[in-house]
């Protein structure tokens, strides 16, 4: 047990010390670091609380406000699984400390448990983003009982167990299949994408749908009772103030914990050993000595690193793929409006204008989420020394990373635009401008992402998941991009009726382009002022 305790302490120290006690944190100042984290969390919590409160109000209107617990926990589970499904496997499999730990007299289940606990912390933080506001809002609309409050508080620690269990099982299944393959990274990435697409489709069809409809028969849906019994148990524990249901809840979660550790422990060594003995595909072509320019060679290196990492590529490609999905959704909504006999032609034209404006604002915001640059410095790891000792300037390095980010993001955005244009009446000005706008927004977000990663790099990681997921730069980049992208969306939405409805939609797109040009200029100026200095400090 002392090994478990020591190992868990090491992993937890690794997570916290960088942010709170590392050299950079000292320079930044502990207070500034804590304030920054609080600010980020506050912004996220405000958005999530608004969403949950809106659903709670709907449920309250039909006297079903108690089911907000079920709704909130479903959304929490889907969101957390979406994030943890590819993070957790990266903790267990192909981690840098595998060989070191395998050579020590420590039981496998101890290593697995320690890694599980360090990953659990991340799952807990993601889960709390949803569960805390869910319980608070529940008590706003329902009576507060001492037992209910106690069960709610205690349940916060157990709720992520299901997410961890699913993530571990998915990771185990995918890696046991792919660990012996030659192209394991590619296959792994495809499997992960398919799984995540499934989660996304599920969340869209049920989790984020109309809350009131889900509980229209006044009961927890049977699917929830079977698939996620812990949600059913904690709902009843809090709503009915029942100790028995709370006990069932705890037992089910402990079962998830034991099963997750058991499943991973069984095959931990086998999968990792398979990964060490990699089957190598040797090309029969002769060795090529072709010369390339420095920019091209840096771009090629960047792309090979990107596509060689499952965690990085999935993390970066989720945003662009969702852009395409959203374009289809927007298009279908417009089509449904067009075919709705209850909507007049005049009303349809107004709604169409609104959707066209919202579409481009939304897509521009979304295209900036998780740009590859926000972790591209972190992903260099200690290999940053290779770049630093070579006769290449910082601007060459930065250019290759920014260009790569644009080359990854823009094709998806253009495909999304083409899809959306198929659903709406053709408008030359709009069509032209929606192809110009993403160039500016993606460039701005890519440069900002790189700058943020230079400011908050994470170079000494044990697994790629640490660099990509447990990274301040990802959070700061994500939320700064959302902030920049949300402002025009909010302005358009709030001023549509009074102002934008009477203008051609192309005018709004021009304003959007101007907005992103402003941020592009800001990003370039900041990069020129601080980028090189920050790069020099990397070691």
């Amino acid at each position: 047990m002392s090994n478990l305790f020591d190992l868990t302490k090491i992993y937890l120290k690794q997570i916290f010390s960088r942010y709170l006690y590392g050299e950079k944190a000292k320079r930044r100042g502990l207070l500034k670091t804590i304030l920054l984290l609080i600010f980020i969390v506050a912004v996220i919590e405000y958005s999530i609380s608004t969403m949950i409160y809106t659903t709670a109000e709907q449920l309250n209107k039909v006297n079903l406000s108690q089911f907000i617990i079920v709704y909130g926990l479903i959304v929490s589970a889907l969101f957390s699984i979406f994030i943890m499904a590819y993070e957790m496997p990266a903790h267990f499999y192909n981690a840098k400390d595998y060989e070191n730990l395998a050579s020590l007299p420590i039981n496998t289940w101890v290593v697995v448990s320690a890694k599980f606990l360090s990953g659990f912390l991340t799952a807990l933080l993601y889960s709390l983003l949803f569960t805390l506001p869910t319980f608070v809002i529940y008590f706003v609309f329902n009576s507060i009982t001492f037992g209910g409050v106690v069960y709610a508080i205690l349940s916060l620690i157990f709720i992520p167990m299901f997410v961890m269990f699913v993530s571990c099982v998915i990771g185990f299944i995918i890696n046991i299949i792919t660990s012996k393959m030659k192209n394991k990274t590619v296959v792994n990435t495809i499997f992960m994408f398919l799984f995540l697409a499934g989660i996304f489709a599920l969340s869209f069809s049920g989790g984020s749908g109309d809350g009131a409809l889900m509980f229209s028969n006044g009961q927890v849906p049977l699917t929830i009772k079977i698939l996620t019994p812990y949600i059913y148990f904690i709902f009843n524990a809090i709503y009915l103030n029942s100790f028995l249901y709370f006990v069932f809840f705890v037992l089910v979660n402990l079962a998830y914990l034991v099963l997750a550790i058991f499943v991973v422990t069984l095959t931990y060594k086998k999968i990792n050993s398979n990964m060490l003995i990699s089957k190598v595909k040797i090309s029969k072509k002769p060795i090529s000595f072709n010369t390339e320019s420095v920019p091209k060679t840096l771009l090629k290196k960047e792309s090979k690193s990107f596509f060689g990492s499952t965690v990085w590529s999935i993390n970066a490609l989720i945003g662009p793929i969702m852009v395409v999905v959203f374009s289809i959704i927007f298009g279908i909504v417009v089509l449904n409006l067009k075919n709705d006999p209850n909507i007049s032609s005049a009303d349809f034209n107004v709604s169409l204008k609104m959707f066209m404006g919202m579409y481009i604002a939304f897509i521009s915001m979304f295209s900036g989420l998780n740009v590859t640059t926000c972790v591209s410095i972190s992903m260099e790891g200690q290999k940053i020394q290779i770049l630093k000792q070579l006769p290449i300037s910082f601007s060459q390095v930065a250019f290759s990373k920014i260009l790569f980010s644009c080359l990854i993001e823009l094709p998806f955005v253009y495909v999304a635009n083409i899809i959306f244009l198929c659903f709406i009446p053709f408008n030359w000005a709009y069509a032209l401008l929606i192809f110009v706008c993403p160039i500016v927004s993606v460039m701005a977000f890519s440069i900002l992402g790189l700058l943020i990663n230079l400011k908050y790099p994470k170079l000494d990681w044990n697994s790629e998941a640490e660099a990509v997921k447990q990274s301040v730069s990802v959070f700061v980049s994500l939320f700064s991009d959302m902030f920049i992208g949300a402002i025009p969306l909010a302005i358009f939405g709030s001023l549509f009726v009074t102002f934008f409805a009477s203008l051609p939609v192309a005018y709004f797109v021009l304003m959007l382009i101007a907005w992103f040009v402003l941020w592009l200029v800001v990003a370039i100026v900041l990069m020129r002022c601080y980028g090189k200095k920050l790069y020099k400090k990397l070691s």
Partner: protein
Amino acid sequence: MLEIKNLTKKYDSKVAVDNLSLKVEAGQICAFIGHNGAGKTTTLKAIAGIIEFDEGEILVDGINIASSPIEAKQKMAYLPDNPDLYEHLKGIDYLNFIANVYKVGKEDRQKSIEEYAKRLEIYNNLKAPISSYSHGMKQKLALVSALIHKPKLLLLDEPFVGLDPISSHEFKEIMNEFVKNGSAIFYSTHVLEVAEKICTHVAIIKQGKLITHGEMKKVRGLKSLESLFLELENE
């Protein structure tokens, strides 16, 4: 070829390198020895332009590393003690990447890669991904990458660690050929017997300070390098 003047590097309150000055001329192989944590790697990284330093000046073939880093780096190559390479690249892709950065032409790089990779017995593994390499193979690949552009100054941090005896012997031959062509080598090592045999000069560092530097024969006199080192460490 390499001139270090009053180099000082601090990490918070700890002085890693303290007012270090030395010269390595063309045609010299200078061993840089010291106990663990003495400041050898910090010094090498400062010369290579990887880390900034607090005081002093470093000139590589007359070019100041701080004010003209790109020009200075064109003249040298650095080999870290534990090469962390791009695992997703094949060996040849990595070598081509380095050659492209140093703007080595097709014929020159082919000649260099074929020559050094065959001598270090890594040529047949160049088409395999680096992720499949052993530590020694990565070390050899890193060595070849350091030699491709025929640098004027080779900075090596424990270059012989992980090399098999044949490759070690070949690399010593390569080092001698390099300095005969007018280059200089500055390398850190704990293997004092090898340093005694191949090095023309030696610099000994202790707790960030240079305690002795000069021609190998003059510095060690009639003693072995190991005896001298132990004596100086105990002072």
